[in-house]
């Protein structure tokens, strides 16, 4: 017994040491392969998410209350990115606005992903008629300009952040449906799916075991790409006044409010604009990296 007790820890230690060595080496190869633009993209998204989760940790100013005396101050030590026409700190408004934009984009992508993929998978794996019916509906969705479609949906649903997000999500249903249908059709033709049917698999078992896992990877890549365009579209709706109502510090709304003072207070449009551009570019860069890895 005692001999075991003495032997075991050393063995474990040794294994741990080897594992540690290995992980160091793995880390080094990971570092060697990292691309700078991808690191920046992930960092941007991480900061935006942190803004959304714990905004109070980044700024001591309020996003909605301002001092009239400090209105339209240029960027400086006190107010890093300046203040708006009501004396509210612009940096604070961007930080607090992050949650609006990100959650909106998340809802939008979620709606598109779930509904679109469901339609696509049903169309791809069903018979001719249902497939045709679903895909013609999708063609109609594709034929409408996204902005027009989302404006109409907002008018039907009413104004508000969540409604705007759903409206944006509906515009991406068609793309998800088309992609997932194409993938399902491709996978369904493969030998291993036929082999699975040949070994007695039922329709749903084969769909679950083979078709879905093999067709959803590129759908996930599209979701990341859609995240970027959803942010852009949500900001557009906010800018047009169809998103969150005024005191809310939504990024598109910030740009829209700053537009009136563009000749005297450039920072009011510039910094929210930069925030939107950074997050959209970062999302696109990450989606390209995901896509490259899956294909």
């Amino acid at each position: 017994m005692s001999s075991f007790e003495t032997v075991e820890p050393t063995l474990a230690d040794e294994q741990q040491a080897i594992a540690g060595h290995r992980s160091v080496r793995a880390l080094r190869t990971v570092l060697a392969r990292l691309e700078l633009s991808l690191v920046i993209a992930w960092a941007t998204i991480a900061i935006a998410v942190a803004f959304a989760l714990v905004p109070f940790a980044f700024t001591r100013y309020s996003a909605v209350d301002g001092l009239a005396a400090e209105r339209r101050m240029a960027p400086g030590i006190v107010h890093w990115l300046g203040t708006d026409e009501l004396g509210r700190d612009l940096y604070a408004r961007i930080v607090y606005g992050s949650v609006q934009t990100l959650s909106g984009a998340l809802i939008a992508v979620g709606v598109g992903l779930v509904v679109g993929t469901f339609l696509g998978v049903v169309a791809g794996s069903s018979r001719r008629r249902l497939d045709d019916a679903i895909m013609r509906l999708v063609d109609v969705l594709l034929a409408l300009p996204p902005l027009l479609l989302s404006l109409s949906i907002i008018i039907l649903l009413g104004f508000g952040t969540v409604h705007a997000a759903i409206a944006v999500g509906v515009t991406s249903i068609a793309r998800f449906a088309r992609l997932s249908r194409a993938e399902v059709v491709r996978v369904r033709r493969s030998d291993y799916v036929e082999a699975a049917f040949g070994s007695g698999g039922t329709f749903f078992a084969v769909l679950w075991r083979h078709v879905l896992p093999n067709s959803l990877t590129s759908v996930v890549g599209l979701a990341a790409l859609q995240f970027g365009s959803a942010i852009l579209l949500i900001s557009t709706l906010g800018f047009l006044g169809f998103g969150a109502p005024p005191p809310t510090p939504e990024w598109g709304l910030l740009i829209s409010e700053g537009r009136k003072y563009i000749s005297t207070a450039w920072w009011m449009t510039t910094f929210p604009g930069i925030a939107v551009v950074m997050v959209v570019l970062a999302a696109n860069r990450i989606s390209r990296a995901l896509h490259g890895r899956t294909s």
Partner: protein
Amino acid sequence: MSDQPAPAPLLDIADLIVSYADHSARRTVVHGVSLIVKPGEVVALVGESGSGKTTIAQSVIGLLPANGRIETGRIRLNGTDITRWSERRLDTIRGSQISLIPQDPGSSLNPVMTIGAQVGEIFRLHGERDERTIRARVIELLGHVGLSDPALRAAQYPHELSGGMKQRVLIAIAVALKPQLIIADEPTSALDVTVQRRILDLIDDLRRETGTALLLVTHDLGIAADRADRLIVLQHGHIQETGATGAVLARPASPYTARLIADAPALSGTMPARPQPTTAVAADSPGAASDLVVVERLVRDFPLRSGETLRAVDDVSFRIAAGTTHAIVGESGSGKTTTIRIVVGFERPTAGRVVVDGIDVSTLKGEDLRRFRKSIQLVYQNPFSSLDPKQDVFTIIEEPLLNFEPLAKPVRRERVHDILDRVHLPRTVLGRLPQALSGGQRQRVAIARALILSPKVLVLDEAVSALDVSVQAQILALLNELQRELGLTYLFVSHDLAVVRQIADTVSVMKDGRLIESGAIEHVFHCPVDAYTRDLLAAIPGQGNGASPP
């Protein structure tokens, strides 16, 4: 440059090292290969996949993929070092001094250009400007490579030509300027056997006319034996053996060459008779009770867009006795694949009947069809596409068990382990994904998956065609062993008669959807009745040369 005296070799490769860039490192695939090709000589570069034979051929003509690089070594053509030549300099010798016959005729022609325009391009690239001269030379050339009605062919597009005709067009382009060296990279591996022989004959004839040397890259030792003056055997980027064809085949110096020769079905002398199961002669005995698979007057029509119908299978009948192997042999388009898809229940016959183990397959549907699948399983040609890339080996082999009576997890695990031992795979592969396995291992996994339900009949659709010869031999041995131990009945589909001879008891020869000849294997091989069967048999490469070891 003229440091070589009188009989200078045409092509002189010295200490060639070629590497490819992987994700993180460079992988060397050719390790210091030296070889020479003399004027007018046929040299065959033989090796299995991954041996570096194609890489060597590509380096000579400067067509290495973008991630490939010649590390060291020299390639000299007529004494001139062309190793580091730029693309533009190489263009001056490509076509005129060295030319290439590519592997896949299907993808080597531009689909949106006419044949005439593509063949004419070689003259245009090398300075001919007069369109009328070009056209005349193209038509003459197309006639020369044996295409009927060359003027019509010149106006056609690649999709209007068959595979063999396309390969003739590519040969026409290669020989157009009468180069001193032609590199043929697996020129016939995508073609049917009878077409293959005609194409190789054509290359031989054209070569003799102009005294062109040929560097023939092939995995098929039979072809090399028939056509080459000298053999160079490659393995893992190293030259294993080199010498005159007859000498190498009769007395291979390297054990690897000896194994290759032994594994090449057509070359191994009289082709060893396979261990005969006791029921092997069942083809002649009318014991209907022992026939596990009965196919009667099978017909399958496919509607064409033009409103006509294509009869893919036309009145095909055969029987397979339990525990024996029946082979269906035919070239592409002969209807053999459609036939077996009907037998396993993936397609329905237009007319006729298929009875497997007393059950009429042609009328089954829904749940009955699903139940029936337990007794017959299909193994696919390509083990790279028949395994789900996202599942590990254990999940792949286990899956069929989940489709029928529920079994406890330990029972399933034990069944998977049993079957894994049967196909001689180590337990360590269970956690791996298919992409981490070799082609032979994948095919073993596919066989294991087919066998786990203990089917009575195994249908093998070209199951060894995608594999290297030595792997092919191993899989065939495994199939023979499994048949002996488990009493399986095989329906084996192949275009390769030499392989069929190693595994089958009875054989049916199909052509254009019809059954041409049928009977016991020895009978069909020794006294074929039909002219087409004789043609097929004559086309097996490797029979003429060194076929009988001492």
